[in-house]
């Protein structure tokens, strides 16, 4: 039953109708590096609670999901517009195990990328379900969706900064270092903060007997650091 696709409702569910097809297969944007991650067959697409679009094939790419239910019936959604997805198995919520998704409400089609997401709270959250005929495919479907969603952070999001790669390692973050040289600098500062042993101090003073002559006058002017150093006993001349 290949009814004319109700495109307007699909858009209100955060989906873009009419994906570009070639011989029944979505045309990917290879120039932009888009690749097919995995194809799942016998997937029903359900908009909202019960608007069943029929059974088709789901193509999960590195950028979006594309569901193809016939030559005139295909829908796509960029991962940047899939706010969450989950495995749902409770049949009191939906009669079959499925992937439940919440979509970014489309404000003005998909040109609305820059829309303030804080406006979300005043909008209905579109819900879309992917229902495999074989429920055992759910785990795999979920995992591929996770993997590909992770490839598509929002532009300008925290972590997308150019220097973010320096922060991946937990130890580095805890050390406050964003690159190797800063870590080395911090180590250096740390070593400077060590108190000299009494012997070292005597040695230093012996090299320059007048070294600490004016320490008391300057103590107040030098951020108090000299106070950290025990006042040396003046060695015998």
């Amino acid at each position, binding site marked *: 039953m290949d009814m004319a696709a109700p495109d307007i409702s699909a858009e209100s569910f955060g989906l873009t109708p009419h994906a570009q097809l070639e011989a029944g297969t979505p045309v990917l944007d290879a120039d932009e590096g888009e690749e097919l991650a995995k194809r799942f067959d016998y997937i029903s697409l359900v908009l909202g609670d019960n608007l069943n679009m029929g059974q088709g094939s789901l193509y999960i790419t590195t950028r979006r999901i594309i569901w193809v239910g016939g030559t005139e019936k295909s829908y796509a959604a960029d991962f940047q517009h899939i706010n969450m997805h*989950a495995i*749902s198995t*409770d049949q009191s*919520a939906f009669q079959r195990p499925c992937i*439940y998704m919440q979509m970014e409400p489309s404000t003005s089609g998909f040109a609305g990328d820059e829309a303030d997401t804080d406006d979300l709270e005043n909008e209905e959250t579109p819900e879309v379900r992917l229902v495999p005929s074989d429920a055992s495919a759910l785990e795999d479907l979920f995992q591929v969706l996770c993997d590909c969603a992770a490839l598509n952070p929002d532009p300008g999001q925290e*972590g997308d900064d150019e220097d973010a790669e320096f922060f991946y390692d937990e130890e580095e*973050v805890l050390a406050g270092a964003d690159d190797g040289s800063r870590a080395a600098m911090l180590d250096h500062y740390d070593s400077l903060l060590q108190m000299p042993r009494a012997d070292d101090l005597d040695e230093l003073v012996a090299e320059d007997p007048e070294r600490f002559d004016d320490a008391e006058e300057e103590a107040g002017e030098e951020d108090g650091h000299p106070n950290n150093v025990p006042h040396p006993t003046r060695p015998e001349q």
Partner: protein
Amino acid sequence: MLFYSYFKTLVGKQVTVELKNDLAITGTLHSVDQYLNIKLNNVHVVNEQKYPHMMSVRNCFIRGSVVRYVQLPPGSVDVELLHDATRREARG
């Protein structure tokens, strides 16, 4: 990326993630990535009336950019460590 490092220490703990659409989901933190995408297991929904369908969900992937708040388990918040780390981050 302080939050990323911090959230990684919460893996396996129970957290509540509040989305910008007011959905609040409690579950066991399975993983978090550098974009603060969050995966939860053993999920249940705090505000069931608003999102009845989410009651049935087991595993869930939440896009980092739609997270408003993450409620932390009080026992897992080392205030001293966080204080120090935030200061260092601010300085850096």
